[in-house]
């Protein structure tokens, strides 16, 4: 079966083309499929839901623009959720490549959509080098790491920061993380300071975080755009008045469904061709 062998060596560019079309078509005209919520995402939602107005959390923007499509929707969903509950959000970033800009953009969205105020409902403390050193230091004193917020306003003059000195004054820390930073929040900050940690990770890292969640080192994990769409779903179920706002992650799930099908088709196709060629080879011998 020569033809099977030939088909097996399909030019990668044909696969590229089909993936491209599979992604493009749902963007041009969305389908609208339903989302199923998984336990590790619900755990994070429930933890936030249990907090009270006036509590504060730390939201670390540990990602750059390239991971935006996966992690931006999580930031939006969490910020809206906190805003609805009156929870204060301290935004920081420990990821050099654009983390601070991601934080600015998401908080600007919050102000535009729900009227959250800088310095009262949220604050963006900005980016800092040093990774673990900065994380350890925040366990003692935020002002030592961030003498000012990202706009240069001294911490003492920010209303939100009154009464917040270190991790002990926060309810939890959520890291929206690419790379190794999310792990450090778990194995350094949670391990040494005991604050609850949850991670919104890119899909590629999520399988690893399951090991941490199962060992109870983290409350939960949101994996990629799917995780984000689940959180969007939960927030909207609990607060129907948010329904008008954009749900980027949920829209993205359409595209993923189609492209997944394209890839699964190729895997099945490849295996059929492979089995056919193997059989001819065996018969040939």
């Amino acid at each position, binding site marked *: 079966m020569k033809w099977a062998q030939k088909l097996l060596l399909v030019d990668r560019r044909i696969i590229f083309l089909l993936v491209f079309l599979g*992604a493009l078509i749902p963007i041009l005209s969305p389908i609208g499929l339903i989302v199923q919520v998984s336990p590790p995402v619900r755990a994070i939602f429930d933890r936030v839901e249990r907090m009270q107005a006036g509590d504060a959390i730390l939201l670390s923007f540990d990602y750059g623009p390239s991971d935006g499509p996966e992690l931006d929707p999580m930031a939006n969903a969490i910020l809206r959720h906190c805003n609805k509950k009156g929870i204060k959000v301290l935004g920081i970033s420990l990821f050099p490549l654009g983390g601070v800009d991601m934080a600015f953009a998401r908080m600007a969205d919050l102000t535009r959509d729900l009227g959250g105020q800088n310095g009262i409902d949220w604050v963006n403390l900005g980016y800092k080098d040093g990774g673990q050193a900065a994380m350890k230091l925040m366990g003692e004193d935020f002002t030592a790491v961030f003498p000012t917020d990202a706009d240069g306003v001294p911490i003492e003059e920010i209303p939100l920061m009154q009464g917040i000195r270190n991790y002990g004054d926060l309810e939890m820390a959520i890291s929206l993380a690419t790379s190794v930073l999310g792990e450090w929040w778990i194995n350094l900050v949670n391990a040494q300071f005991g604050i609850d940690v949850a991670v919104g990770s890119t899909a590629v890292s999520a*399988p690893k975080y399951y090991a941490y969640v199962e060992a109870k080192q983290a409350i939960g994990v949101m994996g990629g755009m799917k995780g984000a769409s689940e959180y969007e779903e939960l927030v909207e179920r609990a607060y129907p008045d948010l329904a008008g706002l954009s749900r980027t992650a949920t829209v993205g799930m359409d595209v993923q469904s189609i492209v997944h099908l394209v890839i699964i088709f190729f895997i099945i196709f490849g295996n059929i061709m492979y089995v056919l060629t193997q059989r001819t080879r065996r018969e040939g011998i």
Partner: protein
Amino acid sequence: MPVQLPGFGEWVAAFLTLAVFSFLYRDNVIYRVAESVFAGISFGYYVGLARINTLQPNLFEPLFGDFSNHWILIFPFVLGVMLYLRYVPKLAWISNWSLAIYIGYYIGVNLTQRLHGEILPQAKGTMLPLAGEPFGQILCNLVVIVGVVTVLVYFFFSSPHRGPLKVTAKLGIYFLMISFGASFGYTVMGRISLLIGRLTFVVNDWARPVVQSVIGS
């Protein structure tokens, strides 16, 4: 509604996006332009980032603004500058001093972080009971215990994989393969999300307005 053409920024962004995508077809000059510009801008960004976010507020402002209270910051300043002496062949050995402190510190932090923050809790997470719970849960616990133990046995280098060790290590490899497959499948999704992000930009922020203004709707 009057159609607004995309701004200059959107044109630049769309051009660069398509330039990188063109690599999928094959290498070409436009891709090389994008590649070279990318290398330059990325480093320039680091420079600005370090200056604006760390060096300015954590070093220069306290040190030069309020010297008497922050004179101690001279030390990290000097240590930081010393790193660059490695480019002066005669003085390169001095740069090793600050490098030694820098690397040493992170090595020390890593040691406690790995042993205390990873090995202890992960080992604990595997100590699951095999009795006193519903049968289904016990089976799940058993899967976790067997998985962790066999994978660790696979990573045992002190004796050759023979006999029972070989069987155990083989089982470890099977666990790894299921996990790798699962991770791969999980990741496909994430990678598509990235593509969605780019295509949404090209379609909605650039192509759609351009097409609409050409058609004149």
